[in-house]
């Protein structure tokens, strides 16, 4: 009886010839889901390498095994290994009489200012006092955009001094404004300072140096990279270069780099599938095995835990082309802290890992 089972389960060895066409199919599938071309390539290669030479029962199809392995890989890729509670950290900073500062950066037009406004809303809902620092002193209308949001948010929340705009108009040095804003917040007892910066292209050295200066000089508690879900192969290049600039152009021993990602415009990418979201879904799977390609130098994984506001909201709309999420986390190993799903203050969600993976794997 034993040998009978053995022969059944031992089955055949998986060889590269049998794997190749299945992996190629998977690769194209990922590309179609907007995963960057080279990352799709690396993902299927790592799946191939882990399966090569393994034995499979003769009942299971190679395609099924590849699918399962890829699903696991994607899940662990998107799953934070440690949760950091922004609200808890704000309270900890408060005990030190220090305002907690968050800097938003990214390329042009991705949604930095809008999602800064959404995060302000979320903080106000949690009884925080927020100072918005208008450090985009370049783009036309940037200051008025923040002022409009501030006024709207203030009207929504009692006590007009709970959210204040710190601005010095256009043309001034953003690093200096951020510095003064933080000092002002300390003086006036604000809990959080949100620093808006101008959009910039990752290859624009003078602008990348200016951003590094702002971050090095003010060492914000959290540096968030804002990227849009619409982006294709550029996602990787943007993140790598922002992170690298923050390292290279800073003259510090331990430069501040990107701590997390805000992925915006999730609502603009293709067909939506209703996803049933519950608290249980959000309790993320343990980070089983750090994939070999995840840089271990980025251990910090954040999530905006705690607030019922976020958790109770059903992340009900998910897109089919969620590949940018993979490209971005793959690149830096950084977690997606928030997901922007629209243009109103409520449209800020937590990434639902299982939903994203199933959207990625769906036909």
């Amino acid at each position: 009886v034993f040998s009978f089972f053995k022969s059944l389960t031992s089955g055949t060895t998986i060889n590269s010839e049998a794997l190749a066409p299945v992996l190629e199919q998977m690769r194209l599938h990922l590309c179609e889901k907007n995963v960057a071309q080279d990352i799709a390539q690396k993902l299927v290669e790592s799946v191939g390498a882990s399966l090569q030479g393994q034995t499979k029962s003769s009942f299971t199809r190679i395609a099924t095994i590849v699918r399962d392995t890829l699903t696991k890989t994607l899940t662990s890729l998107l799953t934070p290994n440690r949760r950091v509670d922004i609200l808890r950290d704000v309270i900890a900073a408060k005990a030190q009489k220090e305002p907690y500062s968050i800097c938003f950066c990214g390329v042009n037009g991705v949604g930095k200012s809008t999602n800064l406004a959404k995060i302000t809303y979320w903080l106000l809902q949690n009884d925080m006092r927020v100072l918005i620092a208008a450090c985009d002193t370049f783009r036309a209308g940037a200051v008025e955009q923040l002022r409009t949001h501030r006024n709207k948010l203030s009207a929504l929340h009692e006590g007009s001094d709970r959210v204040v705009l710190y601005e010095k108009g256009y043309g001034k040095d953003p690093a200096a404004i951020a510095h003064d804003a933080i000092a002002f917040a300390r003086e006036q007892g604000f809990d959080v300072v949100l620093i808006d910066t101008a959009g910039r292209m990752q290859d624009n050295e003078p602008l990348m140096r200016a951003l590094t200066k702002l971050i090095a000089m003010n060492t914000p508690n959290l540096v968030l990279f804002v990227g849009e879900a619409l982006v294709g192969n550029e996602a990787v290049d943007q993140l790598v270069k922002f992170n690298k600039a923050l390292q290279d152009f800073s003259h510090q021993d331990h430069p501040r780099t990107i701590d997390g990602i805000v992925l915006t415009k999730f609502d603009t990418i293709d067909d939506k599938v209703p996803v049933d979201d519950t608290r249980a879904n959000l309790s993320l799977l343990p980070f089983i095995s750090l994939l070999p390609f995840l840089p271990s130098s980025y251990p910090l994984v954040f999530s905006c835990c705690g607030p019922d506001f976020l958790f109770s909201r059903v992340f009900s709309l998910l897109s089919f082309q969620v590949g940018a999420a993979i490209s971005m986390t793959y690149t830096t190993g950084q977690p997606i802290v928030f997901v922007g799903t629209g243009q109103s203050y409520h449209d800020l969600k937590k990434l639902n890992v299982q939903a994203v993976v199933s959207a990625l794997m769906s036909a």
Partner: protein
Amino acid sequence: MVLGDLGRRITGALRNMANATVIDEEVLGSLLNEISVALLESDVNVKLVAKLKKNIKSVIDFDEMAAGLNKRRIIQRAVFQELCSLIDPGKPIWQPTKGKSNVIMFVGLQGSGKTTTCTKLAHLYQSKGFKTSLVCADTFRAGAFDQLKQNATKARIPFYGSYTEADPVVIAAEGVERFKKEQFDIIIVDTSGRHKQEDSLFEEMLQVSNVTKPDNVIFVMDASIGQACEAQARAFSDKVPVGSVIVTKLDSHAKGGGALSAVAATGSAIAYLGTGEHLTDLEPFETKAFVSKLLGMGDIQGLISK
């Protein structure tokens, strides 16, 4: 220019083929694979890439090809013809008519660069001697009117907008009427960013289009856009008659392949490229010139002009 990277990759692949001693199906296969990877890395739509590959394969029949025939030339020609048809919609680029008011409406996804590009284009027309104006029909985005106002003021272009009127259709109609009365040659209407998933936003776009009766609708897209581009571009042009495409942010690292997919989806030619945040960072795009630049090598140019 960034799209040029793609051209280099493709000509490189063709050159590799030229170095092969025998041209057989295997050589063709690896050439097509190299080209496909280059296109996918540039964000060209996956389905378009597959189609291109299939079309090229279908015109090349190794069994029927006479031994004496130059297989290389046939393959090269097939590759280039497919690339050309990808980029060139075969439709001339819209030009304003002298002696009347030309209304141009800008549409596109959120943050693609419409407002910035509106002023750039207005500035370009103004420098060519057209009497040019701007209308801000974006009442949604915080600070939108301030943005257009500050840009227009800097470029010394008359503008129309409102801080109090909430209906973009009303503003668009009033603005266009005013500037038509004042006999402006060019009236550019900026609109809010929108996406196909939200019907009400698309309906609003249609209404703005209905009241302004644009002579040209320009679809503005960001060079870094990925696979979502094709579906969005198609949806925009299904709703309003998109006449030209402007690809912005080409000063980035982006290869702009999404743009090629947008051309295929809308059937409209790329008219300009945005290459920076400043007023003058706008370059005209000539499909024919671009294709020949993409091809690079003289002997190949001869192939496509046939």
